[in-house]
């Protein structure tokens, strides 16, 4: 193999550019565009080494160029007041806060449910609180229309007054409406067990209207209604109810509801006379229940009656019904937008319960009761 050094090579001769010195330039000879670019870099502190030295030399030679270069330092943009409107949309809830909020929602919902239980519960059935409830309904005990034979709710040992009231009503009602089974009258009196003595001893006014429902200047005085009811012989205890009286009762209930703009309550107010069509319950079939359980039954069946009377459709009050009512109440009070709905198939079988709010959404499948 031949070494490279062995080959012949050309050696440059001493050729020189004649007049090459004319091509040299000085910094002050830069064109304006070139100088501006250099000045922009200088103002940005981007020059270093020889470039910086030459530029400083050029600036020193010409005050005009120095002023021009310094003007670049003023060309700086400051942020304007631009705000990103969608910033809050992108914030995420961390798991801790999410859990706290979720717990808070559940707590508030439970509190609302308990509040509803306390408000709607049997507190109003005590004699001291009777005046706060709609006495028109109370005059005809709605429990009679609610309690099925299978699980009646009643005291097995009614007071003495109950017996006399039962006898009294059996006599009077039976005379007025022979088609009604007398045993239902027995239950009728027994259900209002706590006030049975009151029923026999003094007639209860029909037209007692809760204070909260009284619009000023529209509602007649309670005494007027009571007097009207008394004159019409519409009493809850001992007076016989003829067809004419029942019709009059309907009219009275409707007029009261219209005065209060409670058109939806008309069926409810008029529901009492229809209760006599329900199946009777024998006292001997009734088993004693603990007081608490009795009150729960009272509440659930009371809600069921309300739902049936207003919608005129058979309603079963279950946990979903109460929870839905509570959620609607919370929405109304707090202005939230929570929603609870049931998924059902074509056969009406419940598939799942869905809950949605701005913070929480979940779907709970229904437990299958049938294989």
């Amino acid at each position, binding site marked *: 193999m031949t070494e490279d050094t062995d080959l012949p090579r050309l050696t440059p001769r001493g050729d020189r550019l004649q007049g090459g010195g004319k091509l040299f330039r000085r910094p002050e000879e830069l064109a304006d565009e070139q100088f501006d670019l250099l000045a922009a*870099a200088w103002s940005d502190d981007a020059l270093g080494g020889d470039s910086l030295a030459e530029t400083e030399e050029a600036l020193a030679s010409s005050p005009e160029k120095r002023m021009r270069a310094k003007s670049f330092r003023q060309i700086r943009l400051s942020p304007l007041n631009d705000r990103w409107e969608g910033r809050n949309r992108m914030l995420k809830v961390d798991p801790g806060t999410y859990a706290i909020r979720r717990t808070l929602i559940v707590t508030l919902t439970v509190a609302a449910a308990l509040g509803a239980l306390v408000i709607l519960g049997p507190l109003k059935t005590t004699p001291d609180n009777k005046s706060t409830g709609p006495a028109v309904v109370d005059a005809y005990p709605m429990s009679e229309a609610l309690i099925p034979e299978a699980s009646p709710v009643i005291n097995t040992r009614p007071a003495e007054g109950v017996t006399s009231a039962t006898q009294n009503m059996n006599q009077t009602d039976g005379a007025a409406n022979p088609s009604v089974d007398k045993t239902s009258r027995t239950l009728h009196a027994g259900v209002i067990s706590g006030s049975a003595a009151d029923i026999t001893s003094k007639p209860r006014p029909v037209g007692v209207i809760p204070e909260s429902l009284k619009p000023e200047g529209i509602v007649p005085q309670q005494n007027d209604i009571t007097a009207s009811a008394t004159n019409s012989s519409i009493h809850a205890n001992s007076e016989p109810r003829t067809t004419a009286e029942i019709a009059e009762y309907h009219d009275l209930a409707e007029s009261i509801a219209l005065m209060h703009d409670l058109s939806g309550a008309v069926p409810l107010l008029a529901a009492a006379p229809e209760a006599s069509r329900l199946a009777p319950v024998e006292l001997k079939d009734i088993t004693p229940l603990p007081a608490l359980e009795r009150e729960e039954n009272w509440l659930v069946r009371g809600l069921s009656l309300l739902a049936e009377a207003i919608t005129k459709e058979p309603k079963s009050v279950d946990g979903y019904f109460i929870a839905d009512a509570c959620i609607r109440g919370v929405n109304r009070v707090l202005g939230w937008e929570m929603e609870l709905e049931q998924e059902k198939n074509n056969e009406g079988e419940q598939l799942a319960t869905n809950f949605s709010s701005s913070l929480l959404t979940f779907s709970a499948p229904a437990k299958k009761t049938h294989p």
Partner: protein
Amino acid sequence: MTVKEYNNTVREFGDHVYRFIFRSIKDSHRADDIVQDTYEKLWRCVTEIEYGAVKSWLFSTAYNRMIDVIRKDSRLLGVEYYDDSSLYAEENGSDLNDVLHRALETLPPAQRSVILLRDYEGYSYKEIADITALSEAQVKTYIFRGRVALRNYLVMTSVWQ
């Protein structure tokens, strides 16, 4: 990066990224979409990104998304996004910063973006190069040329004599 740190980035850098994009394309709705897309992307890989590097990541991702939008618009409209018909209408009585922002709109998008990153966020040439995927020399060139153009605008509009 934790959820808390992610939320911090939204609060701390959201406005910065938005104004960078908004001043680059001058369309608030598109800027909002781009920034939102950027944060959606950040949320998808929130566990993979270190909090210290997230600001550059946000600007880089938003810039790339903006370039995609500009290219798409250019294809759809059949025109160059950059409109060079700069109107050197005489500026009078305006704040210099406002005039500069109007002048900024006359620059090509690349120059506009690098100047915004330099002036708004104070990024170095190297950082700007990383965000925009340009070389450092290109970044310098764009910035210096952009500043010359801004100065010329001020002179042409009689703001500067």
